């Protein structure tokens, strides 16, 4: 079983790397909104696609167009929940 705190740190590092943001992991709160102008990271739909592909590559979990999986991209918390969930990849 993956450690949730360790996973969240990995996800923050992955988001920073994939989206080329000039941030440190500790500057991303677990519940910060990731996508959209209301979020402090101000990531857009292209960033969302980039993160979705990286999640598939690293964790084997596919974020598709359904509302349920799209919700995984809300925050680092929701992304960690999605990866740790029992849903089939």
């Amino acid at each position, binding site marked *: 079983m993956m450690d949730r705190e360790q996973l969240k740190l990995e996800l923050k590092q992955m988001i920073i790397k*994939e*989206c*080329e*943001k*000039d941030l440190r992991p500790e500057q991303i709160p677990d519940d910060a909104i990731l996508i959209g102008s209301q979020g402090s990271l101000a990531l857009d739909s*292209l960033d969302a*696609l*980039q993160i979705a*592909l*990286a999640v598939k*590559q690293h964790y084997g979990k596919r974020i598709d167009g359904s509302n349920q999986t799209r919700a995984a991209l809300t925050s680092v918390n929701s992304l960690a929940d999605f990866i740790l969930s029992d849903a089939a990849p």
Partner: protein
Amino acid sequence: MIKIVSASHYLQPVNDDAALTSLESALKDLCREPFRRIDRFIQLALLGSASCAAGRKLRPNCGIYLGSGLGPIGNNIVTQEQLIRDAEIPKPFNFINTLGSSAGFYVARNLGLQGQNFFISRRGASLQAVLSAVMADMLLGFVTQALVGAVEEVALPLGTHRLRQHLPQDILLAEGSHWLLLQSGAGDSRSLDLQRFAEFTALEDFLGSAWQAGDRLCCATSMDNRVADTLRQGFAAGALPDADGAFHDSLEAAWLAAFAAGSEPGNLFLVDGHRQRGWSLFHLGA
């Protein structure tokens, strides 16, 4: 009349698989904002265009005409490897930047331009292609000011990069970003015009009559060597030396931009063409 208001010239030879020169620091000084998601090709385009426009207030409708022989080759390789070798969906940033026009988008955004924005890929004649397009547009009045550039990127390893272009393995390769800012109207700066000739003898006759002491001549790299040699022998005193002996696919742009950016007096003539297609003569006035 078309005038060359300013020019910038970046030519960086790449030695034996050494790491490519970092452009980050130069871009930090030249760009209005830090850009994410940009690749090497876009960095080179930003570097050259921003240098050419430095200290000038461009018109918002200034056109952008960017040419390249190989285009964003590094990103293309990464994307092809993801697609074919790894059988994966390519990363969105890589995929989008395989379009040469991505570079034009970032150049426009950096300089605050909203005019027309062209990318033309033409092996061995990218500068001639963009110059032909922009000069037609300027003469027809579609644009009155335009940034015209040619960008070439090197993708490591060098041996593969040479092989990909069918080049000898001992040739020195270079990256380049060469830009001209053109404007319609009068002024003291160098003029730019283009003439076409159906017959080679007509081209030779014209050059013979227009030639003055101190003028320079260059022949496009894609020209037949024997024809180019004939011209070079005829105007030997002005034959332009090659750009530091280094090669990329848009060397004509390197010659023109270096000449326009420098203070050398006289005219520069760039000849391109083929016996069956006819001949083009690009002329940078004194």
